[in-house]
């Protein structure tokens, strides 16, 4: 095999392998992260929206990123677009190297793409960054295509400024790359391009314009920190910060150019035949190692639960939890909500090793309020608290964008509450989107149509369940809000299950017994399993069991299991939580004895 054939074959193999790895990883292991990106933005298909994005540095590529991200609600689209743009970074990098150094295979060209792919594992890095890096590398390809020195010079100056304004920080990569290219041409190290006239002056001009452009905009146009003026908010949601790996990605293409410029002539074809597969294997395993170690697979599961709540897919949430109990706060919240929505809190809550805060996420002023935080309030009928958390989520996104999921939920809350003008405002925004337009148009028909809202399967129920009293939100006394729900609608079974679950999780037996009589009005065929387990245990705490507690029927199975539990507990089980957990981990008794409350 001659060198050209060998290089072509190796190049095809490497590209195919990289594309497949990207596709498999995003498609099978990390798709929920991508899908949630769509929920975190409100992309409007309007000229004003585009105009606004063109008015600041990096805005154009943010617009492009948001445009493609709007399709991420479809998992296949999320996976395909992400793979495509990451692959574009590697493909364009190969084009640069092969065009300039006249070889067919440059495995190091995969490094910038692999690097940005690893960054995308972090939810705060944006797709727009991948597009920006890809476009800037294509910019270098375009630059190399300009054979005439004057044309090349003009395009260099224009592209530095254009890259800066359209793509943000990756212009650094572009500017450094063309400076290095010109230096190599100047010293006849590589490339078959003609030297620029007055090349030193022009190279200095490139450097100067690369530094002066952001400084000029910082001084006269932008209201941003100096760092943000250089980098823009196209890459990382916390734009005032510059993560070092991002800087390394900006520097990677120039570094690879530098490496090949000096190293290529030193290695013979035969040596290259050995070195390239070795390098390929190293990169392959290095990339795999990076994916494995940098990916947050636990968060991926958390996000999966959050996404399932958006779809109101309660059965799938419970099914997923039955396979592996969620351990994160969002997964646990999704699970208790799913149990609450399917009236199974009273029978299954303690099958999933619950903790005290699983019913609601405690309010935390720091960090971003999770998208899911408002959901239990919404479905319970505490619409003002749901609105509060929607706005908190809207407001706590790091880049100040408006998550469409929260806009939609807020509009629903307003329709339920009869705040039609505000609802119309949010629906109007959603009408300018590609995928929420239809929903918003339909929702508009509900505005001021009380009968239609009351007949709506979800909104009607929630409206019917809303509280009639006013009180202040206090997480530590959320039971009072739940009781108010029950006062407003004594048939609100979901609220009842939440109250009882809250008291059981708090180990507040007095309040549990206090509200137990309402069980008869809730339409249960028998006393739910969790209540039976709690009651049979509480009875053991009395010297003399009050007569009224004997009216509730406890099944023989529960009694027998309690006896077994008590025996095991007394025979040293109290000091062996793991053993007890294996045998009785799904009982309320295990929760009572082996789960510590915060104040215990």
């Amino acid at each position: 095999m001659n060198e050209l054939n060998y290089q072509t074959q190796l190049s095809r193999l490497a590209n195919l392998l990289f594309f497949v790895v990207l596709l498999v990883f995003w498609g099978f292991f990390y798709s929920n992260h991508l899908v949630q990106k769509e929920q975190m933005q409100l992309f409007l298909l309007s000229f004003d929206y585009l105009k606004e994005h063109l008015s600041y540095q990096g805005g154009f590529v943010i617009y492009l990123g948001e445009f493609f991200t709007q399709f991420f609600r479809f998992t296949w689209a999320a996976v395909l677009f992400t793979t495509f743009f990451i692959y574009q970074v590697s493909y364009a990098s190969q084009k640069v190297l092969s065009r300039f150094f006249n070889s067919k295979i440059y495995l190091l060209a995969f490094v910038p793409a692999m690097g940005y792919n690893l960054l995308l594992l972090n939810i705060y890095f944006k797709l727009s960054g991948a597009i920006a890096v890809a476009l800037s590398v294509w910019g270098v390809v375009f630059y190399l295509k300009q054979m005439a020195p004057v044309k090349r010079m003009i395009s260099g100056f224009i592209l530095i400024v254009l890259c800066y304004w359209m793509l943000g920080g990756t212009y650094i990569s572009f500017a450094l790359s063309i400076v290095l290219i010109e230096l190599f041409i100047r010293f006849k190290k590589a490339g078959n391009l003609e030297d620029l006239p007055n090349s030193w002056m022009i190279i200095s001009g490139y450097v100067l314009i690369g530094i002066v452009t952001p400084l000029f905009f910082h001084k006269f146009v932008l209201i941003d920190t100096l760092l943000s003026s250089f980098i823009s908010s196209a890459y990382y949601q916390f734009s005032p910060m510059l993560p070092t790996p991002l800087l390394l990605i900006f520097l990677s293409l120039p570094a690879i150019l530098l490496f090949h410029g000096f190293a290529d002539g030193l290695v013979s074809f035969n040596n290259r035949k050995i070195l390239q597969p070795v390098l390929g294997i190293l990169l392959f395993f290095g990339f795999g190692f990076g994916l494995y170690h940098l990916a947050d697979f636990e968060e991926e599961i958390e996000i999966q639960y959050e996404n399932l709540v958006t779809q109101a897919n309660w059965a799938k949430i419970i099914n997923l939890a039955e396979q592996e109990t969620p351990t994160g706060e969002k997964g646990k919240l999704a699970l208790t909500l799913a149990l609450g929505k399917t009236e199974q809190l009273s029978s299954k809550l303690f099958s999933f090793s619950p903790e005290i805060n699983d019913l609601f996420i405690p309010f935390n002023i720091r960090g971003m309020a999770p998208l899911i935080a408002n959901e239990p309030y919404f479905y319970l009928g505490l619409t003002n608290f749901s609105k509060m958390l929607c706005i908190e989520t809207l407001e706590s996104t790091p880049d100040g964008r408006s998550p469409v999921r929260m806009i939609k939920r807020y509009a629903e809350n307003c329709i339920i509450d009869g705040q039609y003008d505000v609802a119309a405002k949010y629906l109007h925004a959603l009408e300018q989107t590609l995928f929420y337009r239809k929903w918003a148009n339909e929702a508009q028909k509900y505005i001021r149509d009380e009968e239609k809202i009351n007949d709506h399967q979800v909104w009607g129920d929630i409206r019917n369940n809303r509280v009639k009293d006013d009180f202040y939100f206090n997480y530590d006394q959320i039971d009072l809000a739940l009781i108010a729900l029950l006062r407003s609608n004594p048939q609100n079974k979901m609220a009842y299950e939440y109250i009882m679950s809250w008291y059981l999780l708090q180990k507040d037996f007095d309040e549990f017994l206090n509200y137990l009589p309402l069980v008869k009005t809730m339409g249960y065929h028998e006393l739910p399993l969790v209540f039976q387990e709690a009651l049979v245990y509480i009875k053991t705490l009395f010297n003399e069991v009050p007569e009224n507690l004997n009216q509730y029927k406890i099944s023989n199975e529960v009694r027998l299991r309690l006896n077994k539990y008590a025996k095991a507990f007394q025979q040293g089980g109290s000091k062996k939580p793991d053993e007890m957990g294996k045998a009785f981990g799904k009982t309320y008794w295990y929760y009572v004895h082996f789960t510590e409350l915060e104040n215990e």
Partner: protein
Amino acid sequence: MYRLLISLLILTLTVVSCKQKITPDEVKHEKPSIFPDYTDVTVPATIAPLNFKMKDEFSKMDVVIEGSANKTIHLQGKKQIEISTKKWTDILEENRGKKIQITVSAKQKNKWIRYAPFSIFVSNDPIDHGLVYRLIAPGYEVYSKMGIYQRKLSNYKQDAIIENTLLSGSCVNCHSFRLTDPDDMSLHIRGKKGGTIIASGDDMKLLNTKTPKTISNFVYPFWHPSGNFITYSVNKTKQVFHESKAKRVEVIDAASDIIVYDVNNNETLFNAKLMQDSTFETFPSFSPNGRTLYFCAAEAKEMPAKYNEVRYNLCSITFDPESATFGDKIDTLFHASAIDKSVTFPRPSPDGKYIMFTLIDYGNFSIWHKEADLYLIDVKTGEVKVMDAANSDDTESYHSWSSNSRWFVFSSRRLNGLYTRPFIAHIDENGTVGKPFLLPQKNTDYYEQLLFSYNIPEFINKKVDLDLRTVEHLANTSGTNVTQRE
């Protein structure tokens, strides 16, 4: 060829400029329902064109604007009526002190309907150069993107004065100017790089305003007319959230006092009467002659349990700027608690005749009180009157006077109940208020699309020129500690 081109150009221009005259299919006797509602409003002659559209569906609008000099503007639009600035300015200037008449026809359901004409009164009273306001999402405890902006009133141009992206994770708030003059400005930056920016002339400093004697950093500001002092409240605040759909948030003062900051000597002045444990004192402001300090005061209650029992009265104490001392007694100008109401934001008119304030059922966070309305008290007679012409069924809260006392701007939630928007109204020397108008925008959908509220609208008599690089530099320093006068 050349002539042919010229002829074609003239013909095109003629066709474009001559709007087709409308023959209405129906004439209605009521005025059109338009957005924004500019029917019968009073405007200054230098206001930007009041673009508007029909509230109900339409496929085309035809508008004729007529002044007293028989000059007319004839406009048509498919989405809105967009008035040329030049023609608008000309017609307003020619009709100062008079009214212009606007006739609207709209093509609705394929029928041209002509509505009864409405008027816009063009006041002889000039208005200030522009407005400064904060744009912030109507959030609760957290905030993401916000900024303080200035807007010229004679056109639609809005510029950022400062955005919190300049200082990562910060909140910018409570901008205040001395009698609408932006040369003297106070501004708080909350967060890690926080402090109070005081810009006075060319001098700018960042203050650390907590002193051992005060319960918090400086909060609500108001400049002394001399520029030598700024009075601030200091508040120990807490937010609580309502579940009732009609209510939303309260910012509760668990304690609050009033101090005066001496700008030249970097000292905080205290007075025991303004720092009583048994009283919540807040929202201070100076009279235009600088010799009276107005404020709100309420009997202290257990918070938040008895928050809905808190009622603030409008009070005053004398202040001697020469010696920087306070009077001995507190006067109650309006005993709101006696009628089971509560006063917020007392703002004296620069001519000294009136104090405008907001009246609510209880507490001090009027911006989230649907019942909040604007009131006026005659300083001489003590007569209090509700400003019906300015008020609506929804919240009217923060307000600010123009430098000549003939205009005021206020924030209102009347458009949708959630987002505050700036309205401007005329007020004559007798306290008669004209119908307010919404701050005009070029695009009539602007407010519909905007997901930010207008917060603390203040008039300015010229452009604010805050040197952001100095602010950025100061924010990275440790700032200057405010001292306290013993």
